[in-house]
Each structure stands twice: as C-alpha cells, then as structure tokens.
C-alpha cells in the first residue's frame, strides 16, 4: 500500500529567507499527523506545498506514490490533487449559501445532482447543520461557520484533509466541542489528515503522530510518548511542561 502523503527533503525560500529546509515527512493512510511549531516556523508553508499552491524549490511531494511537485515544478496543480483544506479564516464564500459552499467542489467534479444532494444532506446531518443549507455564512454563528468549513472539506471525500489552525480563534468551550466532533468524524471515516497547530492540547485530541517544525526544519517526529521521552529542543520542552507541569524543572 502506498503512502497517501509523502514529503521528501523539501526546501522553500522566500527572497533570502529559508522558510523550509530539508523537510521530510510521510503520513500513512487513516493517520492524523499534527504539525506543531511556533509562529513563523513554516507550518502553513508546508501545507501550501502539499496542497500545490506553491512549488517547493527543492525536494519532492508525492501523493499515493505519484510525484506531484518537485524541484520548483508543480506536476499536479491543486485542482487535480484530490485534497481538501480548512484554513484558519475558513474562507467560506460569502456570496454562496451553505449548500452552495458544499456543492461548489462537487459540481467542479461533475457529480450528478442527486449524488450531490445526497452527499450534502448526509454531511450536513453529520455536523448538525440540517435545515441551515439555505443560510449565507454571514447569518451563521461562529461555531456553525466552523462546521460548514469542515463539512465543505469532508463532502468531497478527499484522499486527505489538511487543516491549518482551524480552531485557533475560538473560545475554549466551542473549541472543545468542535475538537470532539472533528475527532469523531476523522475516526469514523478513517480520514488521512494533517493538522497544523501551535497548540499541543488541541493536537493531542486528534493526532496519532506529531512532527515538530522549528525554523523550517523538522526537529522531531513520533508519538507523544516518543517526543516527550527525549525532547530535543526548548520549544518541545516548553510544550511538555505546558501539558505536564510535573515534568518542569524545579526552580530554587
């Protein structure tokens, strides 16, 4: 079985600045990998490289074994990658209703209308938004918008779902509620997913594996236990102390 997403020695520069350097990562089927890192570490850029929105200057990106980007070239543009994304700002199209937002990608794939209707109804039910398909995003609550964004990505039945800090601007109860929903959906549908965040507590709810990205380099990968057994960087030690204060060095 091939690996759904594989990133191999990817480098990306913007001007004179190295945004990503020698980043390698592979994500197995039905696995959720969290990419953790401080602000400006290159997390979102890595996601954009995988999505095909930018080409890596060096290195390869493979989807199900096929090279889709390599060495400054994009062989498969984002339209052909079969991925789905939820951005931090959600990017719900304000001029389309909830149904219009969900149907957009399905129509682009030329699916028959009855298949579109069936899929949209099913996904809206799953995220508890049935009856709201004719609303515009402006007329939804913050939590409902998040659900629409998740539903819009899932309705496509993508080969992998990429989430770029989708819950970072929410209050704690709403975040907890949506994390629960997301966890259930990812598990029951066995979705391969990449979850980008700087919040370890969020990532712990969802991810099977973790990759720590610092200054454009992957500093450590593994399960949470593996990471915490031997944290190699100050960022990781700080994360560990944040979720497990007992592990913090005692000050005198």
């Amino acid at each position, binding site marked *: 079985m091939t690996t759904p997403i594989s990133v191999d020695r990817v480098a990306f520069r913007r001007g004179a600045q190295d945004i990503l350097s020698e980043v390698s990562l592979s994500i197995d089927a039905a696995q959720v990998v969290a990419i953790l890192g401080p602000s400006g570490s290159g997390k979102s850029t890595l996601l954009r490289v995988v999505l095909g929105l930018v080409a890596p200057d060096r290195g390869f990106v493979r989807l199900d074994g096929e090279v889709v980007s390599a060495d400054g070239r994009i062989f498969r543009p984002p*339209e*052909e990658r*079969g991925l789905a994304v939820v951005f931090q700002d959600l990017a719900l*199209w*304000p001029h389309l209703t909830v149904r219009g937002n969900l149907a957009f990608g399905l129509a682009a*794939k030329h699916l028959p209308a009855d298949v579109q209707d069936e899929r949209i109804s099913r996904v809206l039910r799953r995220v508890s938004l049935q009856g709201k398909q004719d609303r515009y995003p402006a*007329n939804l609550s913050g939590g409902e918008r998040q659900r629409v964004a998740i539903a819009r990505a899932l309705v496509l039945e993508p080969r992998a779902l990429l989430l770029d800090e989708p819950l970072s601007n929410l209050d704690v109860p709403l975040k907890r509620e949506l994390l629960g929903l997301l966890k259930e959906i990812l598990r029951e549908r066995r979705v391969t997913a990449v979850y980008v965040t700087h919040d370890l507590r969020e990532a712990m709810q969802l991810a099977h594996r973790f990759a720590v990205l610092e200054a454009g380099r992957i500093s450590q990968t593994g399960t949470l236990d593996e990471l915490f057994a031997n944290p190699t960087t100050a960022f990781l030690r700080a994360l560990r102390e944040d979720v497990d204060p007992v592990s913090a060095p005692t000050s005198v």
Partner: protein
Amino acid sequence: MDRHLSATLKRAQEPLALGAVGSMLIVAALLPFVFLVVNLVRAPAELSAGLALLGSREPWFVFLRSVGSALVVALASMLVGMPLGLLLGCTDVRGRKAALILHVFPVFLPPFLLALGWFHLFGRSGLWGGSEWTSGALFSLGGSVAVEALAFAPVVTSLVALALQGIDPSLVEAARVTARPGRVATRILLPLAWPAAALGGLVVFALSLSELGVPMFLRVRSYSAAVFARLGAVQYAPGEALVLTLPMLLISIALLVLERRLVGPRSFSVLGLRSTGKTVLPLGSWRPIGTLVAWAGALATLFPFVGLAWRASTGTAAVQDWIGSGVQNSIVPAAIAATLLSGMAVVLGRAIALRRAGAKALDALTVLAFVTPAAVLGVGLIGVWNRSGTQPIYGTLAIIVIGFVARYAVLPTRTFALAVARASPHFEESAAVEGAWFLRRLVRIVVPLHAGAIVAAWLLAFVFCLRDLETTILFYPAGSAPLTVRIITLEANGPEPVVAALALVHTSIVAAALVLGALAFRPRRRA
C-alpha cells in the same frame, strides 16, 4: 488523448486569459510606443524638419515651462490635498463624508470645464469679476497653474484619505494615549500617508503635463498644445509632432521609474491593504476650525459651477440645436471602453494582486500609458492605425475605444487589484483545492466576491473616458465629436450661455453616472 488535451487546456486557462488581455494591451498601448521609437530611430526624411526644430531654443523653452508648471501644479495639489485628505479622511470634522464627495467630484470632469467656470466668475464679464486685473490673472500661466491645481488637488485628497482609512486604528489609538491630535497627525498619520500623497503628486504631474484644454482655453502656451497643433489642419506637420514627442517620452519613462520606486511594489499598502476598521482622530477643541477648513477646501473646487450655472441661466434656448450627437458620441465609446477595461481588469488586476508571472510587466505598461502625455500616445496611435488597411478602425469610434483602453487601463486594473489584495487569498485557494479550474473560479468565486469592485472599476473607467479631451481630440472621426470636443470647439466661437449649459449637461451626465454607480455599489446584506 482527449483527456490529456482537456487537462492541458484546463491548466492553460489562466495563462491564456492573461495572454489575451496582455495582447489587447500590447496592441492598444505598446504598439504606439514601438511606432514612435522605431520612427525616431529610423529618422526618415520627413523628420529632418522636426529634428531641426528640436535644435532650436523655442520648443525647449515651452517644454521646460510646461514641465515646470506641471511640477508647481503637483506641489500645490499636494499642499492642498494632504491636509484636506487628513481632515476628510480620518478626523471627526462635521459632514466629512459629504465634503469629501463634493470635493472629489470635479476630478471626474474635464479641467477645462472648471476653467470655463472660473472664467464666468472672474473673467471680464464674469459674475464676480469684470476687471482687467482678474481677467489678466486668469488668462496667464499663474491662472492656468491655479485652475489645474484646484482641479487636480482632489486626486491627492482622495488618495491620502483612502490610505488613512486603511490604517489600523490601533496605530492611532496607541499614539493618542500619549500625544495631542496635532502631533498624532503630523508624526503618525501624515508619514503613513506619505506614499499615497507621493503617488497623488505623480498622477497630478502626469495629468497636468498632458492637459490640453486648460492651457488652450486660457491662451497659455504648452508643449502638449504644440504637439497637438502640428496634427491639426493649420500647422499640419506630423514629422515635427513625432520629434516633439521625444522629450515627453523621456519624461514618461522617468515617471514610470519613479512610480515603480515610490509606490509600485507597495501600491496595495499605499492604498490601505486590509483595513481593519475606521480610523477616527477626534480634533477636540479644534473641531469647529477643522470643519470650517475642510468645508472651505471642499467647496472651493465647486465654485466654478456657480459661474457656469449663472452664465447658462442667461440664455439656454438653443442648447438642443448645438448639442447635436455629442452626448451619444461621448457615452457610447466610453461605455464600450469601460466594459472592455473592466473585463481586462478582472483578469489583470487579479494577476497583479496575486503576483502572477508577466503581470508586473503589463502593470508597468498600463502605468506608462497613463503617465505618458496624451499627445505622445496619440501621435503613436495615429501612426499605428492611420493606414489604408485599418480605416474601418481609424475612421470609426473604434479608434477612440482603443485610445481609451491604452490610456486608462491602469485605473480599473488597480481598483480591482486592490480589491483582490484586500481579500483573503484562501477564498480562491479553497476553490482551487476543491477542483475548480481558473475560469470556473473566476466566474463563480472571484467575480461575485468582488462585484462591487467591478462596478467601481467600470465607473472609474467610464467617467475618465467621458472626461477625456486630450486623446479623443486627436482622432475623433468626422461628425462624431464627443461632448468635450464639442464644448472646447464651441468655446472659441459659440454663444457663451450655450457653452456653459453644455458644460453643465456634461457635469450632469457624470453626476448621474456616479450616483447610479454608488447605488449599485451599495453593499447588500444577504438574508
């Protein structure tokens, strides 16, 4: 094979669309420059007289005088526009929105209409004049500079106001905690708005150097008029006109370089990228004075309409006979050009905002065509299109449309680029990830999302085409004179009340277009 071809075509949608727009721009705007440069380099026999002319002092004297006066107009516009932009853009002066609209309105009119209005106020038989002194002052280089400065100052005002409205309010609030309004204005706001003011000054300089109507009406010699005269029946000497464009061409290139250096790379931040809220600087006890100054400045640009209205009221019975098909000849090519330009702006403006390959070069071409004096562009357009095989274009309104596309492409393009740059790139990126190719994204996402900007782009292009005199006067087809040409022609020998009334007709058309546009632009809440 078919699937492979279909995939290739889908991937090529975006470069093909940009290529099509680029080709249109190259035909309309670049070919005239190529014609000028090639002919100047080849220097055929007919140019020898022109080259001899450039060897004399006279044209250089007029050229330097025109450049000098354009410089003074630009500086004076900045002097008026910067404080007014500050007051009307981000302070709490009373009725600042209304004052800004009234102040900016004359920008959408040909400046010679304002000169006509000032003439009916301060001319020999004017409403408030009647003396040799006021008339002499108006019909002088100083008068021409003053009229143009007042006509063009709103360009600076509006750019500064727009830039200030885009500033993050927290920057001002942080300064207000420690400083008085005056210090906040001079130390925080004006420096932040400086690139917009500089851009305004640059645009005003280009417009003033291009200006034909005001110096012609006020009997002031200008370099643009000298070029224009050599394309007319009396002094017809196209070779001389071609040679005379050379110094102006160099100025255009210098302006392009200056624009690229000053604002080009950061034109979006200059015009308020991603504003998060409205910046309001309370003036405190200075509010009444601020209100007075703001309204005085705003109304000063409207005084000429008093003169026009007064003169028109003295006898307009024959307007219908004099107007002919001028209104139709103005509106039809302006509407066609605006529609074409808006379509081009959607593709090119988006490409500029998203930094697509080739977009920067096309953007530079639109800037070059705009800052180049219309007389220069006009000579090039005549050279390219006045041939036996192209008479179906040169002999019809199509040539005016081409001239408009060449000269005004930058305005709707930058308007649309600004709208795209302000929006989250994720709207379109999400659509791409969902499998929508360029054309589908354009039609289903980009156009509806930025419908307001498209209306604004169309409107801006339309009113600038309507106000145009310098381009159309060079090659309007016989019997198809637009209203601006008709007014300036009649001004020399037609009845004054009728000319004033025609000026008001033009003003009303522009005002109606702006009101309709504003109604269409009004954001609607989706239920």
